[in-house]
């Protein structure tokens, strides 16, 4: 366990030493701020329209969840989908390029310990970014009364989503010593999983359509963002992350056998 923390701490430290993490964090703050701002304006318009049409029933509290928190965290997921590969790309590639993998693999550590510590470091940074958006929640909860349970479900969904994105990033990073190749291939894999959702809506056969919808990461976020936690979705996210961590383990092991 101590050894896992040793690598974890090293990764976190190198995040804070590299300019890339700061650029990503700054970009993330700007983008999530824009999303909050425009979603809030849109919510305002919805409420105004409801007033003018006299639909007072629409003005119940969880409008904030449906029109602001849910969609905004959906945007945050999208932003992280594009930004996280930049943070995960170095986790294994850098070790390979610097030949420091030779130190890790000749130390009394299992490959699983190495993979887990790298994964946790990536996930830690991703969660740190997600936590920044809590600032907006503070504002919302101060000036209004959104549904706290729904907001928690939305956050849980976002964390599970980034847990999957980071596992993909760790996996592609273990495949190559070139960081650009690692991040681009992670992005491509993410986009493939995203297109499954679009494809499921346009495929004629209902069976194939359901399979594609099940494979898509976005499908599983939907009910969460609406405040409903479904065990089916939980199982999907967890097995997704496990699958790619397992593949990472295989990829690190196989590089030793070549």
């Amino acid at each position, binding site marked *: 366990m101590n050894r896992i923390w040793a690598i974890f701490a*090293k990764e976190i430290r190198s995040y804070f030493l590299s300019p890339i993490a700061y650029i990503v964090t700054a970009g993330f703050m700007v983008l999530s701020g824009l999303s909050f701002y425009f979603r809030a304006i849109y919510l305002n318009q919805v409420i105004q329209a409801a007033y003018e049409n006299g639909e007072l029933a629409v003005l119940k509290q969880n409008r904030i969840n449906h029109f602001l928190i849910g969609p905004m965290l959906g945007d945050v997921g999208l932003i992280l989908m594009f930004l996280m590969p930049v943070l995960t790309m170095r986790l294994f590639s850098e070790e390979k390029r610097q030949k420091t993998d*030779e130190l890790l*693999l000749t*130390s*009394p550590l*299992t490959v699983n310990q190495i993979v887990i510590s790298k994964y946790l470091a990536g996930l830690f940074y991703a969660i740190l970014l997600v936590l920044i958006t809590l600032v907006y929640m503070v504002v919302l909860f101060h000036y209004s009364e959104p549904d706290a349970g729904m907001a928690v479900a939305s956050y849980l969904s976002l964390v599970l989503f980034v847990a999957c994105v980071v596992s993909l990033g760790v996996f592609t990073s273990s495949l190559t010593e070139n960081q650009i190749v690692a991040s681009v291939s992670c992005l491509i894999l993410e986009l493939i999983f995203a297109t499954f959702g679009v494809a499921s809506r346009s495929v004629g056969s209902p069976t194939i359509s359901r399979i594609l919808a099940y494979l898509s990461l976005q499908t599983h976020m939907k009910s969460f963002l609406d405040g409903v936690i479904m065990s089916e979705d939980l199982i999907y996210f967890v097995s997704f992350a496990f699958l790619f961590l397992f593949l990472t383990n295989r990829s690190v092991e196989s590089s030793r*056998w070549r």
Partner: protein
Amino acid sequence: MIKVENLTKYYGDFLAVENLSFNVPKSSILGFLGPNGAGKTTTMRVLTGFMPATSGAVKVDGYDVFTSPMEVKSRIGYMPEIPPLYPDMRVRSYLHFVGRLKGLSRAMRKEKVEEVIEKCGLKEKHKALIRSLSKGYRQRVGLAQALVHDPPVLVLDEPTIGLDPRQIIEIRDLIRGMGKNRTVILSTHILPEVTMTCDHVLIIHKGRKIAHDTLAALTAKMNLEEAFLKLVSEAEAVSNAQVESEASNP
């Protein structure tokens, strides 16, 4: 202490090490020689558990590298050809990191890190960023890294490469000092280094063992340089003859 039995390693179709067997007794220094591409680095990588062998076995202190890698890895200090350094780390925190990886407790780490900083002449540079170090200092950090957990077995892959003559002498003395209570395998191209530090010599060529003897026996009739050249050219002639006979009887 180290027992290598019929070690064979293929990279795809390429045969890097063929049926290599040797023993290294406790508290001795083995000079590991061979022309470039002879399979020295490969042998060391198998020995340290970095990569598995295609066939054959390696035992360190009675533990098999393949079946009990943790036991073996905690007993070996390994300095690869390119020292595994993180450029953004400072020397001292890097050594602490390695100590943690090797499983040293906090108190032990404190003591051992100071000890290797002292031993490897890093006292003035212990706060420096590794990226700012010269080649010679990097080499020393690489050696310190291999020593930090006080391993009974040391595997050093060309430790004096790129050093100036004064540094070579320092490192050489250090290695000789370590051989008193440790088992050391030292690969090198510099033959006088072997003469000065090692008690046993192993020479390989194209993955095969061509000589394994004590230094005294090898250098009884001629000096090590002549012996090395003679053995390598004989091995070359044998392998050329083999290729020719294979070509003539397809």
